[in-house]
């Protein structure tokens, strides 16, 4: 019991430092929440799933900062972890099945210009795109996700820890790889294979 009491005392001694960290965390959260959520919302399609994953990304940042030196580029770290979580989510078959139903449901609710048949065709195409993304090398998938989500080269470079001048060549390679895999999947020649 005494051991436990020592532990509780230690916890109290850390409280002030934790409080300061909490304020910092809140500022980070408020600054990045919307972007992180929106990327995931578009990537996985399901709002509830996106919210869970976004919260998980922030939770990981919190845990990381508790145990290790604080990450310097918290925004980049968050986007990297969030996209990884999103890709993992797509890889999980059961969730993907659920996502399909949810994504179609939301698409039908949000889109009025296309017929249901067209929406379903588009969703099928996007499903395949997501599968291909989830089957590619993670760094390449993240690059494509960030770029097509509207990130500048500088922002992508900062997130993926590369130089801005390398983004162009990396994009060319990633798009080439994506095209190859997407064609293979679309033609039914081979399933998307995770590397």
């Amino acid at each position, binding site marked *: *019991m*005494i*051991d*436990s*009491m020592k*532990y*509780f005392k230690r*916890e109290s001694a850390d409280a002030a430092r934790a409080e300061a960290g909490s304020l910092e965390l*809140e500022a980070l*959260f*408020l600054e990045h*929440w*919307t972007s992180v*959520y*929106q*990327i995931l*919302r*578009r*990537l996985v*399609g399901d*709002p509830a799933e*996106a*919210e869970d994953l*976004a*919260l998980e990304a*922030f*939770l990981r940042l*919190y845990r990381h900062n508790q145990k290790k030196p604080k990450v310097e580029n918290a925004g980049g770290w968050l986007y990297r972890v969030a996209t990884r979580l999103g890709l993992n989510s797509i890889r999980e078959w059961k969730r993907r099945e659920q996502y399909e139903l949810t994504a179609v449901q939301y698409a039908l609710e949000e889109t009025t210009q296309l017929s249901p048949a067209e929406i379903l065709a588009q969703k099928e*195409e*996007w499903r395949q*795109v997501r599968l291909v993304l989830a089957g590619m090398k993670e760094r390449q998938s993240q690059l*494509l*996700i960030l*770029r*097509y*989500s*509207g990130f*500048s*080269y500088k922002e992508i470079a900062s997130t993926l820890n590369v130089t*801005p*001048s*390398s*983004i*162009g*060549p*990396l*994009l*060319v390679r990633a*798009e*080439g790889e*994506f*095209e190859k895999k*997407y064609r293979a999947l679309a033609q039914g020649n081979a399933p998307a294979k995770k590397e």
Partner: protein
Amino acid sequence: MQQHLSDGELRAALDGELDTERAQHIELCASCRARQQQLQMKQLEAGRLFAFLASAEQTGPSAQIAWARFSQQIKKQKERSMTKRWFSMPVVRFAAVALVLLVLILAFPSTRTLAGEILNLFRVQQVQVVSVDFTGLEQLTGDGALGNQFTELLADSVEIEHEPGEPVVAASAQEASQLAGFDVRIPTGMTPSQINVTDNAALSLTVDRARAQALLDEAGRSDLDLPASVDGAEITVSIPAAVSVSFGTCPRPGTDVAGNTEQSTTERRYPDCVILAQMPSPSVNAPADLDIEALARIGLEFTGMTAEEAAELTSTVDWTSTLLVPIPRGGAVHEQVSVDGVTGTLIMRPSSETPQYALLWVKDGIIYAISGLGMDSQQAVEMANGLP
């Protein structure tokens, strides 16, 4: 003329990310323009396929709402982490095992009538010693994979509703009585070296059958099948304030003397230490439909009894009032003695390095225990008989 641009540079130029000087080359170079057009076609096609990534902002939880949810998660995680670390401590873990065992080995007499949905299941009126094989328990209390799994399960299943706090030193039996809420007794003519009062504690345990069964399986006891009905059952345990009266030079309350690897050192440091502990009976509540009898048999079998032995014991003990004290099979002896006007149990552990003894009895709803090092258990009996 400038050197031709690489595909990467051409791609950057399409995104407006190439510096102006390099980008000017494209105006002058047909070859680069042609290559860029090819890249642009690919880019447009990719842009079409990735359109869902660039769609208009979707409605979602605001940052403030999300922060509130996140803060809740953090709070829960902190609580869980604290509980988990708490249960990682050997002393607590062993106590928890004893508690789980206690719960497991309680059963109803067949004639018991159920009153209400929740039954006040257990209150100690007597003590009975049962010899068990500690191998299974050591697996659970150790630092191995199974021990860690058990710690995880406890941390997830147990909610501490009231933390007892650090023991408080009382100056006299009277003060200890006021703090603990019951009459503390001290043997006539003896002067305690210290009196400590530990506040009451309360916890609840929600049974996760799947994980508990997985633990049994992991321990190689797949033959023990937990009843499906136990899943989700909530068992609450209330432990009243306890008083520890020390005589001689004793370790601080709560010190893990038993876990000391150098036991002979312990004996040298506390040769004259005798501790008299007293506490009103803890109470255990469980849902009336919980199949405690089946759990009791499983608990006993896990501690090394055969199915027949377990069945025999469960049929002979008044489970609602008997505290079963497990002692290591072959490692301790016990006998019944007459103390304090009731029948008590004297347990002796005649280890060559650190012999120990403990005298347990229950009187007027209070559990008493006198323990010391060495083989002079007679002083425990005399001390008990000297209580006012």
